[in-house]
Each structure stands twice: as structure tokens, then as C-alpha cells.
């Protein structure tokens, strides 16, 4: 499934000709993140694949996107782009470089959402026909550790591109590794669980779909 021969031919964009430094940094950070967060990775009734997917996860820590990205096999990782908040990731040259060059992230402006440039359109445009995305439908990190209600972005994503596989991801214990408002991590053990894909059903309402997606994430807790 992950043999190089099966890899989709990538469009010639920035990420293909990424410099060696970016690649090494990416590999190094992925390794450090997995080690530091003691991450164990589970695929439950699901398999890593290079087909186009949207990974949606509960959001507990700044490390979430990095860790999901790091948990994917390298070939999958190279075609997967985290969707991250512009206000956080474009602050400072290092952060911007990491976000744009190393993680190849799509930065979304949370403060300035307009109808004619909706984040969903932007994401889909950036994803093209081959790229997978990592999104956090809660919008922001939860403070309580509970999984909050999902925002409607995931529904519109599914509606506009109904053929894309939506993979639920549950992140456990990472909020204790790096809680909100802290910048030094504590090396506890965390767990990243990937679940089976789901799609938007015909005639499924927005609320039903979002509730089902949220349940899919929660069901991976055990």
C-alpha cells in the first residue's frame, strides 16, 4: 500500500523541491516529537495510505499537528499538510519557516474570515487533487481536556469534496505534555489513534454529520 510505485505523481510544487535542510529538520523534529511525547501510534480498523485524506482530530496542545504529522509514515507525511492558525504560526521568522517550509502547513487567518475567501475554499485549493490535510474541527485548543463541539468547516469540506476519506484521529494525554500557555514540555506518554474513514452520507444534516464525526473521534479513546 505504501510502496513507492503506488505513490501518486506529485505536482511540481514547493514541497517536492524542498531543500535538504527542510527535509532533515522535518525528519529530526518528527523523531524528537515522537520521543518527547512518548507517542504510541495505533491504527484501529484503518491503514496508512497515500490516497487523499482529511485527518481530523481533537485539539489539546500546540504539539498536536506536529505529532499527527510525525506519526504518519514518511511517504504519507510528505503529501500531508497540517492546517494551522496564522496568528500563531506566522509570528517570528523561525515559526514561519517551520510552518511554511518544514511542515508545509496551510495557514488560516482565524481573525479575518470572510465569505469570499472562506478557509475551506483555501484549504481545498491548497490541497489540490493529491494532498491530504490535518484539521482540528474544534477550532481552538480545549482547556478542560474534553472534546468540544465541532465547527462547521469539516462539514463544508466533506460537502465540497465528498470523495475524500475523512479519518478521525484521537490524541490522548498530549495536553499534559504541553498544556495551553506552557512552553516547556514534560515528557509523559501519549497516544495517537487513527480510526476508520467516514464520509458525508447522502441527505445527512450538518448537525448530524458533525455529531457523528465527533463521536468517531471520541470512540477512539478506548
Amino acid at each position: 500500500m505504501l510502496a513507492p510505485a503506488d505513490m501518486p505523481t506529485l505536482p511540481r510544487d514547493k514541497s517536492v523541491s524542498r531543500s535538504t535542510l527542510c527535509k532533515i529538520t522535518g525528519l529530526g523534529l518528527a523523531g524528537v516529537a515522537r520521543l518527547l511525547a512518548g507517542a504510541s501510534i495505533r491504527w484501529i480498523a484503518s491503514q496508512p495510505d497515500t490516497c487523499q485524506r482529511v485527518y481530523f482530530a481533537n485539539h489539546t496542545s500546540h504539539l498536536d499537528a506536529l505529532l499527527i504529522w510525525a506519526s504518519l509514515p514518511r511517504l504519507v507525511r510528505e503529501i500531508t499538510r497540517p492546517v494551522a492558525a496564522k496568528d500563531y504560526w506566522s509570528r517570528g521568522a523561525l515559526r514561519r519557516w517551520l510552518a511554511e517550509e518544514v511542515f508545509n502547513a496551510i495557514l488560516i487567518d482565524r481573525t479575518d474570515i470572510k465569505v469570499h475567501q472562506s478557509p475551506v475554499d483555501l484549504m481545498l485549493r491548497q490541497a489540490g487533487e493529491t494532498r491530504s490535510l490535518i484539521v482540528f474541527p474544534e477550532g481552538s485548543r480545549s482547556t478542560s481536556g474534553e472534546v468540544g463541539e465541532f465547527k462547521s468547516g469539516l462539514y463544508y469540506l466533506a460537502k465540497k469534496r465528498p470523495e475524500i476519506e475523512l479519518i478521525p484521529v484521537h490524541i490522548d494525554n498530549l495536553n499534559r505534555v504541553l498544556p495551553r500557555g506552557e512552553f516547556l514540555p514534560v515528557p509523559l506518554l501519549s497516544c495517537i489513534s487513527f480510526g476508520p474513514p467516514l464520509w458525508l452520507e447522502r441527505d445527512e444534516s450538518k448537525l448530524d454529520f458533525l455529531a457523528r464525526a465527533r463521536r468517531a473521534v471520541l470512540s477512539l479513546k478506548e
Partner: protein
Amino acid sequence: MNDIRTIALVAGVLLLLSVVTGVGQFLKRHPDRGIDAAAVRTFNMRIRGWWVLCTVLAAAFWLGSTATVTLFGFVSFWALREFITLTPTRKGDHRALFWVFFLFTPLHYVLVGLNRYDIYSVFLPVYATLFVLARAAVAGDYKRFLERTAKIQAGLVVCVYCLSFAPALLELRVSRGPEGLSQLSSRDANFRLLFFLILLVQFADCMQYVWSRMLGQRLVAAAVSSNRTWEGLLGSATSTALLAAVLWWAAPPFQPWQAAIVGLVVAVMGFAGGMTMSAIKRDRGVKDYGTLVVGHGGVLDRIDSICFAAPVFYHMTVLVIGS
């Protein structure tokens, strides 16, 4: 490795491991012997664990005492991760935990490596404790204050402080033997001492299981552990004392009768360690630390007995050397 006793000990252990591996494989191939298949699987898994343990220890010994202290340092670090992951802490403990992991634990092992018993014997139990209390207070969260700080302290003492007494054996001045000379750098003798401890602890664990299965009637505490019985404890303490007495020549400062007492105490302490960890696990509703986070081996499950036995073994050795 030029000491005849070291060679004898290593050869003996290798022989024993090969024999039990053979038995394990035989039982696996012949499932119709009336022995529970799950028990055979557990047995084989344990044996594999011992091979890994022996290989790692041999490598560390070969590299020297600094490498061994470092190895134990990493084991402590990992065990503490498991311990703190299992016990819920609050956000107010975050900064305290950061220093516990990245300052106190490594520094303690540096002090052990430098053989500064005068400092490391109080460093964690006193200074780290005071720091954790104060840091959590300054963080401004008073909810269940004593409970949270006690958890961190218990983790530090069991996973780091107690375990570090095992590699600390390497820094002891062991002086005994027919030569009657005070050997300052008796590397072999020190490594044999550490190996003796690990061997006794593993043997006691194993005997506890065997005796419990054969004669076990009365559970010590049914709510905490469903396989630790008084008969198992008694049997394991006796067998371990016997083994220690037979192997007295391997452990430098001991006479046979002293070795027997050491074996007895090590078995009882190992039992205490197992019971304690069981109690913590039961409280948190997990069976072993390995299943806590899928895919991790569960270091804490492996070292609970040695954590409890190591400090007592260390101080008994010091006592015997001093007399």
C-alpha cells in the same frame, strides 16, 4: 572479566537461561502436556525478557560503571514517565514536573556516578520534595495540593531514588576475599554484587509465582493482587535465601549465612514492591503499565521489585563491609 568467580557466575546464568529456554520451547511445541497454554506463553515471554535484561546488562558492564549508571538513569526516567502518566496531575504541577524530569532525575544520577552518597542520599527525598511543594504552591493551584505533590514525590522516590541504589553498588569499596586486600577498584567484584542483586530479585519473583501456583491457598490481599499468596511469599523467601547462600562466593563481602539473610530480605522487599505497584495500578484501573499506553513495554512492571529491594540490599552490603 579475569576473575574466575565472574566467569563461573556468567557461565552459570547462561546455562540456566539456556535450560529454561529449552523447557519453554519444549512446552510450546507440546501443548498436550496438560499445562495451561497461557501460562506457557507468559513463561516464554518472561524468559525473553531475561535474555534482553542479561544482554543489556552485559553490554553495560562491558562498557564500564559510567555506562551502567547512565543505563539505570534512563530506566528511571522511563519508569517515572509511566508513573506520572498513570497518576493524574494538574496543570499547576507542570513546571514542577519539568524540573523533576530534566533537572532532578539526571542530576541525581550524576551524583550517584560521582559516588557522592552524602549529597545524593538527601538530594531527592529532601531537596526535590521541598522544591516540588514550593513550585506547586507558587503555581497557584491549591486543589488537592498534598495529594498531587505526594504523587510526584512517590514517583521520584520509587522510580529514581530507590532504583539508583542498584548502580550505586558499583561505587562501593568492596574489600574482602582470600587475598585479604582492600581493593580500591574491584570492578569485577562490584559488578558481581549488582548482578547478585538482580539475580536474587528475578529469582524471588519467579519463585513467588511458582509457589503460589503450586501451594497457594491464602491470598495476601485479594483486592490488590489475585496471585500473590502467603505460601508464595514464604516459598519465595526460603528458596531465595537458599540460592543466595549457595551463591555466596559470587557476592564479595558476604558469608554464606549473611547471604541467606540478604536473599530472604530481598525476596520480601521484592514482594512489597510488587504489591505496592499492584495497589497503584488497581486504583487507576489498569492491569499493567504496558497496556497503559499501547505499544510500550511497561518498564515499571519489570522494575517494581528491584526498586524496593535495591536500597535495602545496598545498606546491608555497607553494613557488612563496615563490620
